[in-house]
């Protein structure tokens, strides 16, 4: 099997609703409470009764010791399909990939995916220092448990390779903050200038505080149904035209300046019957600005000079990228990050994005990235969505 092996299409399945439980820097709710809130909110959004749900998937770091089935019990649900995924930035889309197949094969007809965490800075430190055995055994003894150090050195490599400066990554943070100003749910909405960015305290040079996602508490959820399910009859449809993943493409022995998406991009576009120029907006996983540029290049959105792309496509919004403000401004609520971009794309394709609505948005590209093993993330997924607005 390789990336070019034909796969069954993702058709016949609809993303019937997507929601976000507003992110907060400090919140009382436990993770389980947040996931339950997200479940109820997405059912209400979809106009579904709890009795119609027969599948549930949970993405979370801090839900333990509970698992998806414990949440199902608390929600009075008797699922025919359930699944947990704690693979960070990859978890939500990984669940989605399985859930679509479950619906196509008749294992379930209505699946709710919830993702979220109660996260305070101390929870984050505990998580990253024990992220996996490699981190615990090789990075933490050096005091280097935080991914900031690894992405600082990756950003330095990217700067050298492409002749970029700090201000180029800052331009991305500034562009996303402009979007966040029109997103009432974003945690950071105050105006941000490139001067503010360049003056922000360095965390791990060349990264400053504004390159690092703010740790927040929150949750996201989506509902998947079959295309012919009565609940979506007459409503605008959001379908998956194509989806491709490739994880651990180089066994952590490369430079981290490309992801698995570089190897699957051609297949993704061929299966979608579209190309980068046909995409109306992108939700690119943005744990650090450099990774947005890396994934956009992997997928063929950046064809030449990166500086020129930033100036001519990103800052002008010719290509709208991370229209919620992304994690850099909206915040990173643990594993909720894995559905955040998908929910934003869904909201845009349904024409419900308010002041930040992209005009006539019909197609969107969403990515997931993450799971740092030793030097950079291993996981990468991309999907192309199409709305019928």
């Amino acid at each position, binding site marked *: 099997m390789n990336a070019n092996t034909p796969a069954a299409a993702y058709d016949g399945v609809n993303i019937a609703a997507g929601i976000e439980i507003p992110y907060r820097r400090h919140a009382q709710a436990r993770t389980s409470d947040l996931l339950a809130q997200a479940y109820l909110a997405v059912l209400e959004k979809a106009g579904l009764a709890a009795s119609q749900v027969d599948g549930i998937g949970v993405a979370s770091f801090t839900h333990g010791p509970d698992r998806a089935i414990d949440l199902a019990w608390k929600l009075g649900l008797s699922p025919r399909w359930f699944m947990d995924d704690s693979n960070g930035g990859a978890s939500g889309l990984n669940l989605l990939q399985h859930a679509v197949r479950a619906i196509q094969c008749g294992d379930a007809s209505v699946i709710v995916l919830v993702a979220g965490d109660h996260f305070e800075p101390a929870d984050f430190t505990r998580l990253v220092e024990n992220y996996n055995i*490699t981190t615990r*055994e*090789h*990075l933490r*003894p*050096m*005091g*280097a448990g*935080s991914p*900031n*150090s*690894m992405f*600082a*050195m990756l950003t*330095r*490599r990217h700067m*050298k390779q492409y002749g970029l400066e700090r201000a180029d990554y800052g331009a991305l943070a500034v562009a996303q903050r402009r979007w966040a100003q029109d997103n009432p749910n974003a945690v950071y909405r105050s105006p941000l200038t490139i001067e503010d960015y360049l003056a922000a*305290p*360095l*965390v*791990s*040079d*060349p*990264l400053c505080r504004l390159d690092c996602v703010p740790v927040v508490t929150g949750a996201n959820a989506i509902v998947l149904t079959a295309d012919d399910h009565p609940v979506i009859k007459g409503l605008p449809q959001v379908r998956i035209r194509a989806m491709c993943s490739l994880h651990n493409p180089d*066994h952590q*022995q490369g430079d981290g300046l490309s992801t698995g998406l570089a190897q699957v991009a051609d297949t993704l576009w061929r299966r979608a019957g579209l190309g980068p120029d046909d995409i109306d907006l992108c939700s690119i996983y943005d744990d650090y600005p450099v990774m947005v540029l890396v994934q956009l290049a992997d997928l063929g959105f950046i064809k030449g000079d990166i500086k020129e792309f930033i100036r001519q496509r990103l800052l002008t919004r010719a290509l709208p990228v991370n229209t919620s403000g992304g994690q850099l401004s909206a915040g990173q609520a643990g594993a909720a990050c894995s559905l955040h971009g998908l929910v934003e794309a869904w909201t845009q394709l349904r024409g419900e994005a308010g002041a930040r609505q992209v005009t006539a948005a019909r197609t969107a590209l969403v990515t997931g990235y993450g799971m740092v093993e*030793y*030097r950079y993330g291993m996981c990468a997924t991309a999907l192309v969505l199409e709305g019928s607005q």
Partner: protein
Amino acid sequence: MSFHVFSCAACGHAVFPARYLCPACHGAQWRETPAPQGVIQETTATRHKMGEGRQEVLHLATVKTHAGPIVVARLDEAMHEQAEVDLFMEEGALMAGRPGLLHP
């Protein structure tokens, strides 16, 4: 303590950290290969808040070992890219320092 990487007994491919199977040939037998030296590719200075406005600065480097694998090591002091370093283990941490200095 000296620093080792792991070489596949079947194809010679070297990795760090250790794996069960070789990513190049899926061989399962390994031998330890000394990796006493390398060259710094990138560095960073990570600032940790220590309370009361104090900061601790942690110097880290990505090092290409002469044995093959690219590793992350802690530096005692700020160093430049392309500098040759000695690699050694100290209290469970991989350290990199100027060549020829007396390392434990």
